[in-house]
């Protein structure tokens, strides 16, 4: 697809992130923006897993939970700087994804969905029940990242919401760049090949089990970093970050926007993060409207919002 070429996608993403603040009437919008970027990052990881490799996971919030709690716990118990704690969380998530992924990625379709779901529930149970370590369902405080103070010493004075808007936006652009690089690389082709036809991928030499695991581990790292960013900007974390609803949210954003395209999936994150705020005008019908929008998109735009729109625009141009 010419439309989703790497440079175009990155340019659109950077332009929107940089220009949007001009239209922000209050600091609340910076806050919503940075939430979108945090979700967008997790969703970009799922594009690699769902969109490229064609595998499903309903437990990726588990990795977000690991990333989030790494930032809360590692500074206190291991004396790590919060930034290093996020890296530590990502490494831990990658290791766990590697160990969990090996057995469950042998499963296909809804079997894989249920097994991954089990993993997510397991993580959130541990976080809720190990109250002495994690504070249980009440959650726990997360130390300050400290980067804003460093920026101030070099003359860049940002408010807290502005800083997190810029910082999460930067991480999202980096994450999108990596995922887009992957798409047109030998690894990306192997992933998309096994998505298209596992048997044909095998016959051209693709070690299918290995590459499914690569996609699973990569997407786990994205989810973990997303969880870390959420914890660090909220300075507080509860086990909800690893909860079932968060996993479902991630997958819904990815599929709604268009699992095959990084930009599409990020659009999904934009819509599903902002729509609940917009739909508050419907008051008690908010959830109802949200569900309705999701159903209509999937019925009429099976490939997700962005790919479907792109296709119809191209179709008209020809």
């Amino acid at each position, binding site marked *: 697809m010419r439309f989703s070429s790497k440079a175009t996608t990155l340019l659109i993403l950077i332009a929107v992130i940089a220009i949007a603040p001009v239209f922000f009437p209050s600091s609340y919008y910076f806050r919503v923006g940075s939430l979108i970027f945090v979700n967008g990052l997790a969703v970009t990881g799922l594009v690699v897993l769902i969109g490229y490799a064609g595998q499903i996971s309903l437990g990726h919030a588990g990795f977000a939970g690991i990333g989030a709690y790494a930032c809360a716990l590692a500074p206190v118990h291991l004396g790590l700087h919060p930034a290093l704690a996020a890296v530590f969380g990502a490494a831990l998530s990658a290791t766990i994804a590697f160990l969990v992924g090996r057995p469950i990625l042998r499963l296909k379709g809804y079997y894989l969905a249920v097994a991954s779901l089990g993993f997510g529930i397991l993580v959130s149970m541990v976080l809720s029940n190990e109250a002495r370590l994690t504070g249980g369902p009440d959650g726990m405080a997360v130390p300050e990242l400290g980067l804003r103070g460093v920026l101030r010493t070099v003359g860049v004075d940002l408010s807290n919401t502005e800083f997190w808007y810029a910082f999460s936006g930067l991480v999202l652009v980096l994450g999108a760049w*990596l995922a887009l*690089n*992957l798409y*047109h*690389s*030998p*690894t*990306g*082709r*192997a992933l*998309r*090949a096994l*998505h*298209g*036809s596992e*048997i*044909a*991928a*095998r*016959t*051209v*030499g*693709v*070690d*299918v089990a290995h590459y499914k695991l*690569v996609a699973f581990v*990569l997407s786990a790292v994205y989810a973990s970093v997303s969880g870390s960013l959420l914890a660090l900007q909220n300075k507080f974390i509860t086990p909800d970050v690893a909860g079932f609803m968060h996993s479902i949210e991630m997958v819904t954003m990815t599929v709604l926007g268009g699992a*095959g395209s990084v930009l599409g999936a990020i659009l999904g994150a934009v819509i599903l993060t902002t729509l609940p705020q917009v739909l508050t005008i419907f008051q008690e019908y908010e959830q109802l409207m949200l569900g309705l929008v999701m159903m209509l998109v999937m019925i009429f735009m099976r490939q997700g919002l962005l790919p479907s729109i792109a296709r119809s625009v191209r179709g008209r141009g020809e």
Partner: protein
Amino acid sequence: MSLLQIEGLGIDFGGLRAVHDVGFSLKPGEIVSVIGPNGAGKTTLFNMISGVYAPGRGRVVLEGEDVTRMPPHLLARRGLSRTFQNLQIFQSMSVLENAIAGHHLHERGSVFADLFSLPASRRRSKASEESARVLLERVGLGRAAEQEAGSLSYGALKRLEIARALALKPRVLLLDEPAAGCNAVETEEIDHLIAKVAAEGVSILLVEHDMKMVMRISNHIVVLDHGEKIAEGEPAAIARNPRVIEAYLGAQATEVQNADG
């Protein structure tokens, strides 16, 4: 010495003997065709040789190494590639990308290099793209390179599968009905292509229903009926073999003789 040797290969599906005690061998550059009526077990035989099914009995020996029950991706590393009777195209990829994907074993490297698009990764991608374009030209799809694979005709997709399989630079190539759905001109093109690939030393195992094509290009023919080998030999001998005529050729026999004449 034979490149690929099949010995007493057999498999049962729920008590039904799908293939039983089939053996033959391929020399380098030889074209061997497997023929037989529908349901004779040709594709099942292909699936066992290419590692898709695990055979219940017998051995597959590739260049002196026992590769029975080896998974397809490891057989690919040993130079065995195939195409499919029911197409197995990477639908969401362009024609070019399908052909590039066939280069997997030549272009794979570290995931890290691919993520950061390091020069090594870009170099590997570029090399396989150049090779893929040459292969597409070779199968007559050079102009369709940028199209979505799903938009090609059935016959063109058959040729795309051949290009993808050739990308592996195989020693042995299994072609499952490469000319099915192709018109006379396309069939002839595939015919030439197969002969040329074989002339380069690649052994070809062919399942094909177009008897004119089989008789024209095969060095050796193996005939299956009800999962068992009922005859094998040179095309001319097979065309005259009474068991073969009875089991399979029947009405087509006259057609074949006309083609010979």
